[in-house]
């Protein structure tokens, strides 16, 4: 019985490494080789007990007015910002598409942007200005239905840069 312990442990170690490694390989590839889009968002600042602080992102309404379906087709509007023009349960044959983060209806997989414990509260104050005279958006990379957020910007400047210059 004791002879089996080491092979079993090795198998478990491989499984434990595989779970995060699969995510890393998949997401890193999207980040490096995916097509870039900009989505308008409205941020607020909550706290995730497990992963630290993040700015909670709510995509603008126009991304939610496309019906149900697991796959959303991305199109770019005249203003340069991306939107989901349609959604269906079948994988689109052409065009860039993104997979929903929800199984029952289409939900754009953009809901959080993680930040440092110190920076996130400052980002919160910036949020107050968004909507009146400023515009917030995220840049994302998309490939084969997967999406990774690469940055959060307010009026074209990365939120980390804004906060760094303010402090």
């Amino acid at each position, binding site marked *: 019985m004791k002879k089996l312990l080491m092979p079993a*442990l090795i198998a*478990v170690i491989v499984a434990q*490494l595989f779970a995060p490694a699969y995510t890393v390989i998949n997401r890193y590839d999207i980040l490096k080789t995916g097509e870039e889009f900009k989505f308008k968002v409205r941020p607020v600042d909550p706290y995730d007990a497990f*992963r630290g602080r993040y700015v909670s992102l709510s995509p603008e309404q126009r991304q939610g007015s496309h019906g149900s379906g697991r796959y959303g087709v991305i199109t770019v509007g005249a203003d340069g910002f991306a939107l989901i023009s349609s959604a269906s349960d079948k994988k689109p044959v052409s065009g860039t598409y993104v997979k929903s983060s929800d199984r029952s209806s289409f939900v754009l997989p*953009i809901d959080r942007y993680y930040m440092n414990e110190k920076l996130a509260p400052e980002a919160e104050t910036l949020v107050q200005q968004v909507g009146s005279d400023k515009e917030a958006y995220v840049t994302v990379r998309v490939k084969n239905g997967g999406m990774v957020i690469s940055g959060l910007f307010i009026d074209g400047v990365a939120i980390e840069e804004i906060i760094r210059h303010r402090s």
Partner: protein
Amino acid sequence: MRKEEWLIAEIDSWQQSELIDADTAGVLKDRYAPKRNTNALIILFSVIGALLIGAGVILIGAWNWEYFPIPLRIAIAFLPLVISQALAVFTVRAKYESLAWRESIAILVTASVFASIAIVGQVFHLPSDYGAYVLTCGLLSLPMIYILDAASPLLVYYWAILNWAALESSPTNALILLGLFVLGALFVYLKKGKATARLAYMARVTVAAGFALVLIMGIALKCSLLLVALCYFVLLVSIEGLSVEGLPEQLLAPFKIIGVLGGLITTAILTYEAMWSYADTWSYQGRLANVGGSAMIGIMLAAAVFFAIRLFKYDKAKSGLVASLAFLCVLRFLWIMFGLSDSSYAFIFMCVSNLAMLLIAVGFIVYGVRKTAPLQTNIGMAAICALIAMRFFDVEMDFLWRGIVFLVLGTVFLLVNVKILRTRKQSKQEESRQEDEA
């Protein structure tokens, strides 16, 4: 070199010099073998230390997080996991005899799995899917319980699967949850041979998690939660019948305590007339159409009755308690199934449940007096007092009569206890007298 190790070496040399034979050497070695490191405090501090080291590594990494490139962040995410896994390999190879090592490394690996997956999620700003996250981490931690023979991750495992099932409630997930729970509980059952504090801890955790399990399953299968809870308590009381060879007290104690107390409290709740005159959740679900819920109740009751029958030879009193509680379960089940929440039946059901509780209480008192066991007697007395006190809410009675009732109950309480103590004293005196004569 510790003195025990020195002595063992000496015994070997005596045997080689033929001063003692192999049998004597074996007996001496068993008697003076170095004690294994099983001190509970050492284990506790080892576990806390392991967790603090893991948390420290992550927090130091988080200090300058914003300035780290993504590959470095990923490396930091994997660092605690790889270190803890390396320590797990070292433990299996060199420190497997040390319980403190096994327990602390198992919980360190578990914490590292949670941390690594969370940090990877943070690096790539992954959308929130808390249920999938805790389930993945829980499942990846489960093998550590078996491989390192460690109890510390068991609580985390139960917590993870219960959180997932509560967040993603559905009949299918309820069945999956049951399967996952069995995987954890099986480890406790396999360890039943070693009557240790660790077994007692695992049994307590399993009983508590089991209660959450049946409630979550009850919600998913649209069952009456009161009935589900009562069935669970009946099962706990009868669990002793699981093994005819006898189970250690460390394993059985939480089952008995939670089962008896939970069973009595739930029975007490059912003695109110109002509990039999409102439409239970199940009544809205098309009564007989609820196959899943009925199956769950039926399986729990059938298992309890099966165990009670096996137990009957050895402990008739416990089988009687199981039968009384099971009767109430069946009564409640029929009340729900046939939609008898009409207020004209409520009084009858209330009388029957009051009678059942009274019988259970009297059963405890009789058992306690016969076996001169004050605990069982007082449980029975307390149940009768609770039953009477609860009826004060139902029945109009002025303070004089309430006072008289309490005086009578208090007097009976004292007299019964004095009687039991006297009987115990007499039997002890008798035993010592017989020993002196012998």
